[in-house]
């Protein structure tokens, strides 16, 4: 993407682009190109379907464009600011729909399968469905951490900026998240242990 004066925006850093985006929509377009897929992936796994993911992703960037004059990078990089907008919109989406954050899994199972032998596909589907169900039973911040780490492939520093925590706190949270996920998978294998699952979640 090129500025009106011929400058190549692709090599500009985010701070420079944000400053230019206040007058030049092409600069905002470059920011959009850099982050739209990550934001989309995050929202997709939080909502469970492409339609809502597209709608909320569009709203994230429209909101960012509207408020870009008010954005000041005070310890919150532009990427982290976008994710916080996305997080808030997703939270509102869940609240407005009065959902327990249990997401339809059909799209997850269909979208994530890799090329495998037919006899293995069913087992993979079942395993994946169990895993994704367990992830969606986790508290919201733990789901967020797993999605930021493995879907959006962010570093602990970047995740810390988004979640407003230190890197050390992110490492601790990640450890606790895996423990909680293991408990959810174990509890999922024993459908009569609803009370035990509740106790484990409280302990974690």
């Amino acid at each position: 993407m090129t500025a009106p004066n011929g400058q190549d925006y692709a090599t500009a850093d985010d701070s420079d682009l944000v400053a230019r985006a206040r007058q030049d929509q092409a600069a905002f377009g470059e920011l959009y190109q850099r982050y739209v897929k990550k934001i989309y992936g995050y929202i997709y796994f939080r909502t469970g379907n492409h339609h809502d993911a597209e709608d909320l992703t569009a709203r994230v960037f429209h909101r960012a464009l509207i408020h870009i004059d008010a954005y000041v990078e005070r310890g919150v990089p532009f990427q982290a600011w976008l994710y916080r907008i996305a997080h808030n919109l997703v939270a509102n989406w869940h609240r407005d729909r009065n959902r327990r954050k249990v997401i339809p899994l059909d799209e997850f199972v269909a979208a994530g399968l890799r090329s495998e032998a037919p006899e293995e596909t069913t087992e993979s589907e079942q395993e994946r469905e169990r895993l994704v169900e367990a992830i969606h039973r986790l508290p919201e911040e733990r789901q967020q951490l797993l999605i930021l780490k493995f879907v959006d492939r962010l570093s602990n520093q970047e995740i810390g900026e988004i979640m407003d925590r230190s890197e050390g706190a992110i490492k601790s949270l990640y450890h606790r998240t895996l423990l909680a996920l293991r408990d959810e998978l174990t509890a999922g294998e024993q459908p009569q242990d609803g009370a035990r699952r509740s106790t484990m979640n409280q302990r974690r």
Partner: protein
Amino acid sequence: MFTFDSSRHNKDQWLEDLLAAQADALIGEIEEFDPRLPSKGISPAQAGEANALLTLASHVAQNLAPIEPSAAFLDRLHDELTGNEVVTLLVRWRKLPARYRLAARLGGLTITAGLALIAAKRGINVVSSLQRREEGKADSALALKSPTSA
């Protein structure tokens, strides 16, 4: 190869650092990851838990793959944001938050209902006045002629 972060002091620090290093390796953040556990100070139970969590993390990484949005969506949104899209009434409508669109729909329905009621009332009034006119003509045709004085 991961190294312990000595600035953090908790009993699970070694495991947290190990898991964090593995996660970074799984996403390609670091190239080399040595999954070997520390040779000293780890009980068999701790080692078992560590290995179980390392396996679980690999499983999660395999199944939470990045999802690509459609190219059509990416292009359309890009054009909206950079002013390249022809701004039509439909585009402006689509940009409104859902609650604004709902309010606009309810307002439109209310106005439409009001206009319909007004039109209906006027229509009824017109029909009524036509009926009265017809009745008047009929009544006058039926009226007896008054006798003339001799």
